[in-house]
């Protein structure tokens, strides 16, 4: 069976291409069901060093340290994991002004059938706004290259930037 040019694996390939294009070579991840193909892509793509971490804050620590060795990094996680990282982000990336690109799933939006993610979804974007973090939603396939722009923006402003993927984009349906 041939993979659809717009299916999850193809979308994962596009996201990986965007990440590579802007200089990202380290990707630290913790799973969310929506990003399984994306994590699989990063883990198998020779352009990246993929590190599966024990918790989301570890990705913040590792990727922030990597800044000092000239390595471009992406911390990729689910929305709920991101919400556990607020202190690590404000402590490390805000206090020391260390740039970082974070990729998350936009859980809790219309169409997310997981009841256990709805409360996270209610507060996800308000929390991002509350800590003043630039937020770049990726809601359509043609928005994927915004990831590279978000990475560059984090470098220019010396602060973290978060990109959020919708379920529809990750499934190749938008």
């Amino acid at each position: 069976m041939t993979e659809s040019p717009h299916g999850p694996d193809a979308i994962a390939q596009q996201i990986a291409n965007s990440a590579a294009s802007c200089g990202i070579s380290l990707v630290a991840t913790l799973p969310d069901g929506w990003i399984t193909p994306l994590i699989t892509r990063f883990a198998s793509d020779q352009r990246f060093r993929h590190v599966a971490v024990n918790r989301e804050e570890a990705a913040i620590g590792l990727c922030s340290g990597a800044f000092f060795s000239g390595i471009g990094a992406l911390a990729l996680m689910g929305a709920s994991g991101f919400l556990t990282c607020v202190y690590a982000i404000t402590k490390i990336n805000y206090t020391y002004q260390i740039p970082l690109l974070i990729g998350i799933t936009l859980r809790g939006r219309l169409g997310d059938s997981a009841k256990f993610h709805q409360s996270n979804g209610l507060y996800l974007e308000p929390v991002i706004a509350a800590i003043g973090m630039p937020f770049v939603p990726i809601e359509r396939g043609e928005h994927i290259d915004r990831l590279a722009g978000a990475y560059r923006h984090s470098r220019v402003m010396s602060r973290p930037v978060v990109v959020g993927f919708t379920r529809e984009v990750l499934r190749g349906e938008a």
Partner: protein
Amino acid sequence: MSFEACFRLLAERLKDDVVVTSAGNCSELWWEIIGDAERVFYLEASMSLASLFAAGIAMGSPKRTVVAFSGDGAFCMNPGMLLVERQLALPNLKHFVVANGHYGSTNDLPHPFGELLDYAGVAKASAVERIYEFATLDGLAQGLDDMIRRPGYAFAVLHVAPLGRHASSPPLDGPEVKFRFGRYLERTGGPQIFDAPLKP
């Protein structure tokens, strides 16, 4: 062993290595002893992320030895850090846990898990291959070079007494720590960090 004597010995022997210190006594005492704000990143109050931050530095700096200090309070928050460090197996990453059984940054409040937990045992159970325990200055003096200079990720427990006094935090704002440390790395053969051109 005495916390202060332990750190004085380490400071004497780690003169060329990059160091990441964690919250409280580790940062305070290191600053008090060496007053160095260039090859040391004082990562205060990261709640257990000092060693993984150090791993990120080590990952792209294979010719440097990167030394991380975690407090035992930090270790108990995140013992899973060892699984990531084991997986990374960075030959230039050396991780010390400073076990004094107290929260040194908060007036030496006793640490409730200090007598229960075998830190080296946790490392062993995490499949870390090179594990050291130092409870005396003589032992540290004898074993330190093997831990630091022999290539390979290594983890060590430093059994020290509580500091028993207040020490001052490094008088540095975050961006100053970042720039001093980063410029030092750039100046001493590291990659360009701050003004690296961005890809279009």
